[in-house]
Each structure stands twice: as structure tokens, then as C-alpha cells.
């Protein structure tokens, strides 16, 4: 272990010790050291080279079943003040026996990805991307793109002697863009992805090349014709948004509030047999994953929905103790396994509906009713993409939509935090402003 790695663990151990010496029954701390290099650019020029360092400690203290917490950047007086803040917060809180340290096996320290950025290569990739977009997609414009390297080291220690450490270096790319020609602009779209390796070509990050092409084909949008109930073919980016709403409904805090529509559905069919939802949180699988959670518990794979049947909920250490359930959740990095059909076959099998690339909608409530605008999307009729859409809303219920899935694509998009296919489902109300 190098010197800075051992310093991170010692910082976490030290603050946990300090909290106990100040009166805590138990304490846990995570020291996070991050270095970042970011090359910012638009489609015309490089704009900014940004380097940042972060050095924070997050402390949880437990005293008489009460919990308080503080996050501090700095050392010395700031650290002592943070310990005092956390203890004062705990003293004021009601007692709750669910608040406690976790017992878990210690993992060997893990290192994923590179330790330092190749700055010159990053700048070179950004310049190549500017040139490549101008050449291949001349109508595409962007004002907010960045190619980022982030190396984070998380060191965990609790007062029971458990320690964990993980270091992860990864490259990321994010861009927000539209197409513009003859004074007309499309809706904004965005895409991003992370990987352990420097991208050979930023155009290959996520589904970017496809999305740029779709932007250029969206300069003459019009509303969907009328109001009807039809199919939605949901592209990976839009599917990810729906899965976050689903994860909320399957999460421990929804169970705790009593509002989850799935609270009595473990073992029941909640989706089409074509659909599975897998949580794959470890950093080895995804650059944006993590090897252990906020309590130092190693994350593990979980099949949340398998072949349409709800296998388990996403429950963290606190909710597990609170509700008497088994802990299952780590960081949520979702995989939806691919299906058999190609995206082209799925569109060809759509009688009437839309290809939904981005969903801009109100956050679904506890009932999982949703409504919103189909952005960067296309009208589909008789198996063919007819035209890009504007002023078209869709509405339905996410529970019903999962049960109505009729196809899952064999192609998937890997963003470094999720790997998702395109899915198709029926029963969604679609209406264009007529």
C-alpha cells in the first residue's frame, strides 16, 4: 500500500477514534481523496482545462441508538468541529435501535483503472472530436462538453475495527447537444459514458454516434397525429430514467414509508417474462460502481427482477434493521439483459407508436403514473419511422408498462454505470398537439 493509501485509512481510523474519545458509543468514517482533470469544449473550440482536488471525511457517530453525522473538508480544527457537530446532532435525535455499525468481512484493498490522467491525450481526443463532429455531423452544435478523468480513493474505518479501501480511476465524457440548420434547432439531447480506459474516439462513447445522427434527422419535427393508445419503443437513455423511478419504488425507503406499490409483491410477476433487472454494483463491473457501501459492507450482485418475477428489494443496512429484512442493496448499477430481437425488428413490429429517445416528464409519484414529453423521439407507423416529434406527450403507468413489454433488443448501450437495451411496450397514451 502506498503512502497516501495508508494515510487515507489512518485518517478514517483517526476520526472514528476521535469521535469515540469524545463520547460516541461507536463511529464510522469514510475518507475520500479525489483528483480530477477536465477538458471542456464545445463543437468549435477548447474552452477550459480544469484540475481539482477533494479531500473529505464523512463521519457517522452512534450514541444510545442515536445517530448524527458530519462531512468535513480539512484537518485540525475543522475535524474537531465536525466531530462535535456530529455528536451534538446525535444527542438531539430520537433513539432508534436500527442505527448501528454493520458487521462485514474486510476486503483486500482494490485498485481499478489508471492512477493518473493522460492530459495530452485527453486534449487530443477533444480536438479530434471537435473535428470529427464538424466533418460527420456538421449540423450538430454543443456548448457543454467535457472529457474528464477522475481518480477517487475511498478509505473506510469503523470503531469495531473494520476497514475497507478502494481506488478507482476512470475517464468520462459528457456532452449536451442539438442540431441547427437554417435557423432551426432541435431539442437538446445529452449523452455520457465512463470507462477505465481512455476512449479511442469520443464518438464511440455510449450511443453518441447514433444520437448525433438522430439529431441531424430531427430538424423538421411535428406532433404525433392525434391522440391514441399505442406502443413505445424505449431507447436505453430513456429506459434508464424509468428504471430510476422503478428503483425508488423497489427501495427500502419506499417500503419504510408504506408507499411502495410493490410492498407485497416479492415472488410475484411484476413485469413481462422478457424483462429482468439486475443490480451489478461492484466497481470491477462498472467504473461508476463501488466495492463497499457507506457502512463498509461489500456490495454484491442482486437479481432484482428475474424473468418478470420480483426477487428482492433494494434494502440498505439501516432499512434492513428497521424493517427486519435482509440487506441487499449496494450502489445501483443496473443491467437489463438483452433480448433476441434487433432494434430494427422491434421498430418493424410496431403498428403505431413512438421511438422514445428521451423522456422529459414529471417525477412519477408513488403510484408510478407517469406523463411527459417525448423529446428527441420519432413517430412510428406500420413498422416504419415516419418523422421526428415535437409537442407530443405520453402518459401511462410504469407498473402496467413493465407488464406490457413485448420485446427487448439484443443491442445494449454501456455507459459505465449501466448496461441497457431498447425495450418495447404497449398501452401508452400518446397525444400530439393537434
Amino acid at each position, binding site marked *: 500500500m502506498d503512502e497516501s493509501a495508508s494515510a487515507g485509512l489512518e485518517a478514517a481510523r483517526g476520526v472514528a477514534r476521535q469521535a469515540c474519545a469524545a463520547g460516541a458509543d461507536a463511529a464510522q468514517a469514510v475518507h475520500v481523496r479525489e483528483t480530477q482533470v477536465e477538458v471542456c469544449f464545445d463543437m468549435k473550440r477548447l474552452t*477550459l482545462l480544469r484540475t*481539482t482536488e477533494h479531500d473529505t471525511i464523512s463521519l457517522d457517530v452512534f450514541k444510545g441508538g442515536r445517530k448524527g*453525522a458530519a462531512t468535513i473538508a480539512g484537518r485540525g480544527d475543522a475535524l474537531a468541529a465536525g466531530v462535535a457537530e456530529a455528536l451534538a446532532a446525535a444527542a438531539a435525535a430520537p433513539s432508534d435501535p436500527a442505527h448501528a455499525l454493520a458487521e462485514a468481512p474486510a476486503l483486500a484493498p482494490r485498485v481499478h483503472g489508471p492512477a493518473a490522467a493522460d492530459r495530452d491525450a485527453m486534449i*487530443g481526443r477533444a480536438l479530434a472530436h471537435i473535428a470529427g463532429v464538424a466533418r460527420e455531423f456538421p449540423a450538430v*452544435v454543443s456548448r457543454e462538453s467535457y472529457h474528464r478523468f477522475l481518480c477517487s480513493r475511498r478509505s473506510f474505518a469503523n470503531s469495531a475495527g473494520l476497514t475497507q479501501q478502494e481506488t478507482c480511476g476512470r475517464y468520462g465524457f459528457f456532452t449536451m447537444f442539438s442540431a441547427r440548420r437554417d*435557423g432551426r434547432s432541435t431539442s437538446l439531447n445529452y449523452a455520457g459514458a465512463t470507462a477505465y480506459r481512455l476512449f479511442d474516439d469520443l464518438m464511440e462513447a455510449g450511443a453518441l454516434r447514433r444520437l448525433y445522427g438522430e439529431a441531424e434527422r430531427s430538424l423538421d419535427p411535428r406532433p404525433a397525429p392525434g391522440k391514441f393508445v399505442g406502443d413505445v419503443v424505449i431507447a436505453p437513455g430513456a429506459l434508464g430514467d424509468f428504471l430510476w423511478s422503478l428503483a425508488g419504488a423497489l427501495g427500502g425507503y419506499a417500503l419504510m414509508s408504506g408507499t411502495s406499490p410493490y410492498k407485497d409483491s416479492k415472488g410475484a410477476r411484476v413485469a413481462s417474462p422478457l424483462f429482468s433487472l439486475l443490480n451489478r454494483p461492484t466497481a470491477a463491473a462498472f467504473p461508476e460502481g463501488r466495492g463497499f457501501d457507506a457502512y463498509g459492507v461489500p456490495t454484491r450482485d442482486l437479481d432484482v427482477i428475474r424473468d418478470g418475477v420480483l426477487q428482492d428489494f433494494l434494502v440498505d443496512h*439501516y432499512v434492513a434493521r428497521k424493517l427486519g429484512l435482509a440487506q441487499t442493496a449496494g450502489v445501483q448499477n443496473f443491467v437489463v439483459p438483452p433480448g433476441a430481437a434487433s432494434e430494427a425488428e422491434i421498430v418493424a413490429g410496431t403498428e403505431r407508436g413512438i421511438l422514445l429517445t428521451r423522456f422529459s*416528464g414529471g417525477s412519477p409519484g408513488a403510484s408510478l403514473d407517469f406523463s411527459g414529453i417525448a423529446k428527441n423521439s420519432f413517430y412510428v407507423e406500420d413498422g416504419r419511422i415516419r418523422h421526428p416529434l415535437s*409537442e407530443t406527450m405520453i*402518459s401511462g403507468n410504469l407498473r402496467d408498462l413493465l407488464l406490457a413489454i413485448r420485446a427487448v433488443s439484443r443491442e445494449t448501450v454501456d455507459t459505465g454505470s449501466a448496461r441497457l437495451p431498447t425495450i418495447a411496450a404497449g398501452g401508452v397514451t400518446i397525444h400530439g398537439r393537434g
Partner: protein
Amino acid sequence: MLDRLERIAGAAGGYAELRLHRNTSRVVVMRQSAVIENRSTSLAGASARCHALGTFGFASVPGEDDAALAHVLGEARANADALGRHAAYTDRPLPKTAPGTGVYDYRTRRARLPASARLDLLKSLDARIRAACPGLLNVDLTLQELTIEKALATTEGARTFSASPRTVLIVRLDMQGTDGPVTLYDVLGGFGEFEDHDALLARAEAALGGLCEDLRRKAEGVFPAAGFHDVVLDSDLAGILAHEAIGHTCEADLVLAGSVAGGRIGQRVASEKITLTDQAGRGFDGGSTIAIHVDDEGTPCRDVAIIERGVLKGYLNNKAMAQELEAEPTGNARAFTFADEPIVRMRSTCIMPGADTLADMIGAVERGYYLKRSSNGQADLTSEFMFGVVCGYEIVNGRLGRAIRDTTISGVAFDVLQAVTHVGDTMKWSNGGFCGKKTLIPVGMGGPAIKTKLNVGGR
């Protein structure tokens, strides 16, 4: 502190900004009477941004001493030089402005209250809600405090300190509806530290009756009919309309990216009843939930009339965008944390009040909807926007009817503003409000109720 910043910034070659920045926050969350989050956070550091050869360099570290300041200034300069060498652009000096100066410290003058005061407030409110609204599935109470302190010196002579605090209490209630749980929430609080909000519990209690009644009626509510409708947007939605649907399209970086507002200065884009501004300080009436007098490039903030009596008048600029548009910087360059570079952001954005009453607006609708509270919102370059609506009512023959379930409204902002027939006489700023554009940042948004036409999602 400012002397120290000014001395070290003065050593920079070329254009430079040097900033000490601290965000202090506290979050307490109570769910089902259990405290599930109870954390204070203090994140502070130094940052610098330099300009060279047509590009910027930025650096930050989590330290506040002279060594940290000298380090970030040197690294930011090296970053600007390195990028500039690769880019090989023609160097153009940034537009100069009068240097922003002054101390704007809005931290509380009252004695600090202990952590127990926060927890006591939530426990008391939780008990009162459960007594006042029997049959609830769940009560969530979230207390969020955030104070942003910034000290800034630039090589152009800016020298300023600000501290802008905000305290927000979110009350969320869940109830079993006819076909599943329904949720409603209210956001209370506003500008100032927790100590300045001694009436927070009383305000929450006063709001409770209306919130419970809205929730009870929503539980028996219906889905709106999907389609294009007459609507009355209450001030909560008018504020988010000002911010999301219009404000973003008039940010200069988005104008340059092709927003629908580009090239339309001087054109009529809204009903002449509409005047929409992005305001400096604490807003025209001193009631906004943020304070900003000098931006993070050192430019003195000034009010920007975006739309005046229906005519598009101006965009929101920082120095780099002003240079590209050959305009004046407006003081809209803002950074959320010490590690963020300043980018074009809104400040306190609102539709100015008119002369109509809410009752007159509702009375003028034969069939439509009265929409009271929003959740999230989003817009884009085309000005096509959407807002989630969590509380609303049918209007039938000028009277409120059944409550509606959660829905989303959408429209093209300039069309929606052209269709405005009434602007309310009562201005209200939202008590919370964050904008997400690369990073989060607190913003003020507000307005009166307005009557217009737009798309309503539904069945």
C-alpha cells in the same frame, strides 16, 4: 481575508480570479417519525481561474491558507497556458467591467441555536401533522440549510465578500387513494439561516390545513383529460415557467447553441402583459431566496429585462459569452462550490405582477385546470418545456371542480406566453429552488398567477 486574496491575485500574470469559498449545510430528514438523515457539512477551499490564448485554466484545492491560494493560482495559470498552446487560438482579452466591490453578509445576527432546536421542530411538527391529518400513510419532513460564503479578488480590481443563506422545510404527506398512494408536499422557509426563521413551525402549521385538504381531495381525484387546455398557473408554476422555459433559452451560452431566443431581440415573443426579469441582489422587492451583488467573475450584478411588455429585450451573459455576442457582461457568472468554475446561471428570475385577481382568472375559464404546485421542470433550446404538476383542480364554468392526480404540462414557452390573457396581482417567490446545469446552484424564481393555454398530460 480580502487583503490576502488581493495581494496574491496581484501576483498573477494576465487575467485571473482568485476565490475562497465555503458551503456550510445541514440536512435533517424524518420519515415515519424516525430520523434517517442528520448531517452537517462544511466544504471549503480555494480556487483560481486564469485566461490565456483564448482559453481558461481553473484549479481548486480544499485549503484556505496562503499556500493553497498560491498553488491554485499557479496551477490555473499553467492549465490556461497548456490548453492555449494546444488550441493555438488567437488571444482576445475578455471584456472589462467595473470591478465589483463590497461586503454582503446576510448571516444571522442572532444567537446560534443548537442541533436540538432543529430536531425539536421536526418532532413537534410531525406530531401535529399526525393529529391534524389522521389516516396518513407517511409523513416526510426535510430541513435543509445552506449558506454559501465567497471571497473574491480579481486582477481587474474586484474585491468582494458575500454570504447568502437559505433554510427550507419540505413537508411531504402520503395518503392511500382510490387506486394507490398519492403524495403531496409543500416547501416552506426561504432566505436566511435557521435562526432567522423563528416562525417556521407556525408557518408550517398554518399551511397544514390547506395541504391536508388538497391531499384528501387528490386521493379522490381524477386523471386530467390529455389535451390542449385553458389553465390558470399559480405563482409556483409561473416562477418555474420564468426560469425553465424562458430564462434558460436566454442564457447566452444557450443562445449561441441555437436557442429559439437567438436573433429575436426586439421581437414580440409574449403577451404585452408579460414582463420577465432576472434580478440582482435579492430581487425587486427584496423577497427572493438568494442574494447576489457581484458575480464570480467580479462583475457587478445588474437586473436584466429579458422580456419587457411582451418584447424580448436581453440575454444573460458572463464575460466569455458577452465577448462572443459583443454584449455587456450582466453579472450572471456563478459557481456553486469552490471546485466549480463560474458559468452562465440565472439568479432571481420572475414574471412581474399584473393587475388581475386569481378569482377573475378562474372565473374566466369555461373548462380547464387550475394548477397549484409543481415538482420538477425542464426546458430546452426550442423553449418546449415540461413541468410536473402535483396539485391541481378541474375548472368547470368558472368554478373549481374535482382534484386531479399527478400530471405533466408542456408547451412552447413563447406560444404559451403569447396566449397569456391574465397576470395576477400577487407576486410570490418560491421558497426553495435549485437549477441543474453542469452543477446545482440555488436560484430564486417567482411570479404571480397567470392564465394561458397549454398541453396537459393525462388519460
